[in-house]
């Protein structure tokens, strides 16, 4: 046995064996491994399929719980006079009580910012790439989405457009190129609005219109522009854009009978742009519904200040449901049921036809087309309650009616706070569970702090006053 082995491993073979072992030293490939769940960035945007995936990834950014998934709507709503904290209130409660900081309880100052810029980065990467095939429609959507993201960021992190006469107050940094090392300073609100309008305008000719309300269409862009111009107090353009959408014939107001269901219906006839939510997106209790429903966190309740404004019999009153377990007192017995799917599968409305009418009404009022304004408001009001009287007020009373209708119609869709501030009104809560109930206009606290992470990482970043 030993002899045999010795023979086999005679010296020459042994040396050969040695050589083999030391040169198993593997080819260069041995150290060049590629990931299996990701693509190197240089290979990620090559074919049309890649761009289709990339634009879906941009929409995915809008779905984030810190964006249209929940907090971008919930945060301004709990800062307004429409919502109040329940007994279990926790998330976003710093902002509801106006004691938020750059490191607030739910870290929203940082998270909403990052969610917005994440969408901007994803769109920038598409817009920077110039493939030799046509991706106009995808680029159009990317422009529109970037515009929306800037509009959202400038609304929540900066004072409204007319806060200074020339909108020269601090907005948010405009980033239109991919540069990992950038440390941009804040642009003025005017510059940001200019960017928003420029991007929406670039989007218009590129976008094709064969798509449903989950995607940016030409009409979605125009509808959003009607809101942007309204916030900018460019009344003429606001009316023009609203008018285009209304006259496109693509959308009709849902009937009174079907109204309550539109928030749980996909592609209702008045949905212009909504962010799709389904079981795969899996926001669960971390959805907008989870914020209000007893089966979710149920942390926030409708303020009676709002509930009492909705006329008895108005279909919109049915969006509140009774929950006797709330125990009465300051908490009352009502919950918000606008988003009724406890698992968070209700789409998040971005813009609906009813808002476009109300945008048009408010802009027309300022253009002193009072009768046109009265007609639009009455249309929305009578859709809620057929027996309601038409609006006949004029002057500032008419504006009050427009804003009242807007408050009822668009409640819990993330509008109220900005409808107040841009009209230079404060937040006055009577049915109030927060530690601060009255915040007169103007207030440095109507906008969020810039997250501490950003001010630490970016030496050019200026914090909002009072934070």
């Amino acid at each position, binding site marked *: 046995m030993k002899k045999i082995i010795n023979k086999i491993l005679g010296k020459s073979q042994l040396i050969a064996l040695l050589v083999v072992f030391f040169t198993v030293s593997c080819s260069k490939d041995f*150290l060049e491994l590629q990931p299996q769940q*990701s693509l190197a960035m240089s290979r990620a945007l090559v074919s049309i399929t890649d761009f289709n995936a990339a634009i879906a990834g941009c929409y995915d950014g809008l779905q984030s719980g810190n964006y249209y998934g929940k907090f971008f709507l919930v945060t301004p709503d709990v800062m307004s006079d429409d919502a109040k904290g329940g007994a279990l209130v926790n998330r976003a409660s710093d902002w509801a009580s106006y004691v938020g900081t750059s490191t607030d309880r739910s870290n929203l100052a940082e998270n909403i910012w990052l969610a917005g810029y994440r969408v901007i980065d*994803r769109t920038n990467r598409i817009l920077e790439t110039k493939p030799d095939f046509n991706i106009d429609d995808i680029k159009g959507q990317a422009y529109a989405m970037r515009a929306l993201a800037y509009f959202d960021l400038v609304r929540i992190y900066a004072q409204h457009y007319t806060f200074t006469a020339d909108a020269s107050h601090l907005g948010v940094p405009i980033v239109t190129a991919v540069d990992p090392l950038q440390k941009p300073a804040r642009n003025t609100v005017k510059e940001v609005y200019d960017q928003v309008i420029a991007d929406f305008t670039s989007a218009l000719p590129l976008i094709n219109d064969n798509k449903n309300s989950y995607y940016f269409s030409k009409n979605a862009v125009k509808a959003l522009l009607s809101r942007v111009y309204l916030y900018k107090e460019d009344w003429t353009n606001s009316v023009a854009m609203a008018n285009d959408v209304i006259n496109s014939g693509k959308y009709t107001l849902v009937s009174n009978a079907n109204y309550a269901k539109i928030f749980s219906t996909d592609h209702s006839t008045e949905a212009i742009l909504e962010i799709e939510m389904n079981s795969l997106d899996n926001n669960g209790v971390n959805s907008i519904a989870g914020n209000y429903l007893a089966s979710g966190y149920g942390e926030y309740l409708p303020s009676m200040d709002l509930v009492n404004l909705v006329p008895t019999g108005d279909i919109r009153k049915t969006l509140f449901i009774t929950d006797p377990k709330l125990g009465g007192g300051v908490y009352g017995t009502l919950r918000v049921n606008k988003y009724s799917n406890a698992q968070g599968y209700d789409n998040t409305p971005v813009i609906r036809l009813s808002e476009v009418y109300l945008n048009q009404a408010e802009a027309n009022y300022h253009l002193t087309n009072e009768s046109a304004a009265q007609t639009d408001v009455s249309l929305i009001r009578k859709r809620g309650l057929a027996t309601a009287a038409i609006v006949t007020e004029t002057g500032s009373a008419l504006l009050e009616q427009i804003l009242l209708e807007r408050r009822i119609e668009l409640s819990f869709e993330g509008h109220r706070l900005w409808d107040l501030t841009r009209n230079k009104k404060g937040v006055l809560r009577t049915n109030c569970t927060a530690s601060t109930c009255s915040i007169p206009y103007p207030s440095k606290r109507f906008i969020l702090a810039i997250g501490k992470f950003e001010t630490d990482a970016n030496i050019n970043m200026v914090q909002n006053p009072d934070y």
Partner: protein
Amino acid sequence: MKLKLTFLLIFCLGMQLAFAQGKVVTGTVTSADDGKTIIGVSIMVTGTTNGVITDLIGNYKLTLPDNNAILKFSFVGFKSQLITVGQASTLNVVLERDVVDLEQVVIIGYGTSTKEALTGSVSTVGSKKLEMLPTATLQNALQGGVSGLMMNNSDGQPGAGAEIRIRGIGSISASSEPLYVIDGIPVQSGSSSPTGFSNDGASSSIMSTLNPNDIESISILKDASATAIYGSRGANGVIIITTKAGKEGKAKINFSTSNGFSTNAFNHLQVPLNADQYKQLFIEGYTNKGESVATATTRFDSWFPEAATTNTNWVDEIYRTGKTQQYNIDINGGANGISYFASAGYYNQQGVLIGTDFERFSSRLNIVAKLTDRLTITNNITLGQTTANGAEDGTAWNNPMHNAYMTAPQVPVYDQYGRYYGDHIVLGMNGNNPVGNLLQDKRWQKQTRIMDNLTASYKIREDLTFKSAWSADLVGVNEFQYLNPRYGEAMLTKGRGLEGTENNLNWIGTQTLNYNKLFKKNHDFDALLGYEAQKFESRSVQAMAEGYPNETLTTLANAANAKLATSSGTSFSFASMFSRFSYNYAAKYYATASFRRDGSSRFGEDSRWGNFWSLGTSWRVNKEDFMRNIKWVNDLKLRVSYGITGNASIGNFDAIALYGFGYAYDAIAGSAPTNIGNPLLTWEGQSTMDLGIDFFVFDRIRATVNYFQRKNNDLLLNMPLSETTGFNGNLQNVGDMLNKGFEIEANAQIVKSNDFKWDLGFNITLMKNEVTRLNVPIIDGAQNHTEGHDYYEFYMWHWAGVNPANGQAQWYTDATKTEITENIAKTVPFFTGKSAMPSSYGGANTNISYKGFSLSAQAVFVWDKWVYNNQSKGIESDGARAPRSTNLYAFENRWTTPGQEALFPQFVWGNVTKSNQTNSTRYLYDATYIRLRDLTFAYTFTKAVSDRLKISSLKVFAQANNYLTWVRSNIDQYDPESGTNGNVNGTVPKTKSISMGVNVGF
């Protein structure tokens, strides 16, 4: 061992040639153990370099100058004997085993050395410390016993993982865990957890698949001279585990078993409220808010319908007395050049938390076959399987250890139908039931590991050996979680099941050439040259389903909606060349140089290969002539070493800019950038300096003192990016850190007579850590890693007590601590001067034996360590989150009346004062402690008894583990043991146990 033999062989052959004249003496050397002859015993003429070693049948023949010669018989693992030759020409010698001497052979990287020859800093732990451990993982045996090594484990989950830090913290973003090497092969360590059972590594460990009873020794390599041979993986130290080998001879069977009971180790854990206390607090919380007692009472009655008949102590409900049992059997022996060690083990531990347990089956077969004089084949194979049931940690509502304090005592455990109560959804917390959570819901992990290591070693010439080692380390992990449909986390989705598997294969081929020769009597030269290739591949699958029709069937097949089906894979590879040159002159002056060149797939394209090296020297002062007359000094050695190592424990693909998938919208697959990438990304560097002195005096006291300096450079940091980039960070090699300190290890044999022996040992590590370069501070929860500060220094909001006038929380506004405010928004966090890095740690042990009796004790201590309890912000929240209960300490110390000096503020439901601010000093505790880790009493029956029983040995023992604990803090609500970073995260508290066992040898 083999190296040592080779060394001796060559050494002695050389000597014999030089002195071949005079008187001849012959004989046989046998072992007192079994009477068998011993091969390779060294026989030296004292005062000369003349000597031989025994041959294959234990015989020797030695030529002596005269009859006055004194012979020294020595062999590894046996006591040396000095014999004056006199007139005898035949000298048969019987050697006795010596446990102390066994430690003299030291296993080092890719070889062995001896305590005398080491130029580096290496500590060893012998098999005695690892036998019949009352815990499942071998790392537990290392706590407090090895200087420089800090073992942290806060988790009382059976089979929990353990964090080991050797000489401080070496990294910020990469791992600070040492490299584990088993029988020469770098293996997988840490935890693999496809669905998160491990709670980020705290609750499970791949290492728990190994049976500690199979281990012969553990070497802990600490300085660069010892670790540089592991190159880019040596920076955090290396733990080399060597398993038992068989000894040729008649088969010896060893059987041992033990049974034990365990409870929480700390006697003063926080206590929950009873029903009366909670109701009082409930009403008070609302009246303090301005409501009437009547409104509050109405709400109480509506929320707690079972209040009249319920007073649940949730903490008592979820804890129990745990049980541990283990059985081990091993057999070893061999003949004709083939020896074997085979073992089988079973370990079962029921945790102190109901529903938690850990079970392990393990087996091992180690075979050595000397096929020819030149060729030896060894194969070590082991198989281990573990099954564990555990709970989620942290502040999740699903964490029973958290929820048990927050769920009101008015909530019953069972409902009227005898099911777990789940009607308290109105209280928030998702209607979790801590008991149902542990007994009805499921959360388990199975680990299967097969490790095989096949080595062929061929002696090409007497002085040149080639060795080829091939090994595979296969780890399979299967995890499952089930949440019931009726109450708790998954109520909305009607139950949820989640299953995951992960399969890892790590293969390594190592080829080494070893040259060893003694030139001109005094120049001993040893060279090692090697090549190693390693590849790791991992694949995991996860699936989730929701909508369970009933509460009994839990596999995913029973659920209505498949929700998730995903798989992923990852891999990394290393290719390395290494060498080591050791030289000593007359066993007096030693020098070692090591070098390794590592390439890895993990490093960026532009920096794929790195070189690592070390130099070490030592001087055995007692070998000098001037020391010859100082008899009380048995040994005195000075060491110095310096070297460069690296830390390659970075992500597998961190260097590459990536687009990831899984960003679906409207059911269309989406992609998005996931990593900015950095082509320059590379290993973290470390330069280590070590100065050491080893001495052995008065034949009794052995001590080692080391001074070390670990300078880490190019530390990987997720450098904060402006979030306007869509990212918040990018990994870059920036940042330096320094760890320096002293290690002292001392052992004294106070009494060492034949019948009565008493040993005493002590070790302490005093060290300081400092972040020496960091462009921007990194705020990481309660800590802020900032240049000039200790890495783990807490950076917090500073609690300034309660205002006696109004019961409001107060805070210091800034670091000057001159101003106090009730408005936390007007304050900033600042450094506390307190760190989770202890100023010192170590342990003491003693061993007393008298005839068959023995008593051993080990105590461990950690000094000046601070911990932050993240759970407290929820449990002691002063009512911030209604209607969660609190603990008794908070209840008893709350402010109620103006003028009262109280520890805690007024209790108001839904208060927004942020008195429970995260990361505040209010929840920072002193975790200085001393713990009696082990107290073991054993009795070995006399030979007369074992002979009568027809067995070779019989031992009984009783062990008490963690039985006494002293803490310096006066707020004793939490067990002082915590993770390395000092963040207490609601894991199962540490346990103490008492066990009894028996060991029988056949």
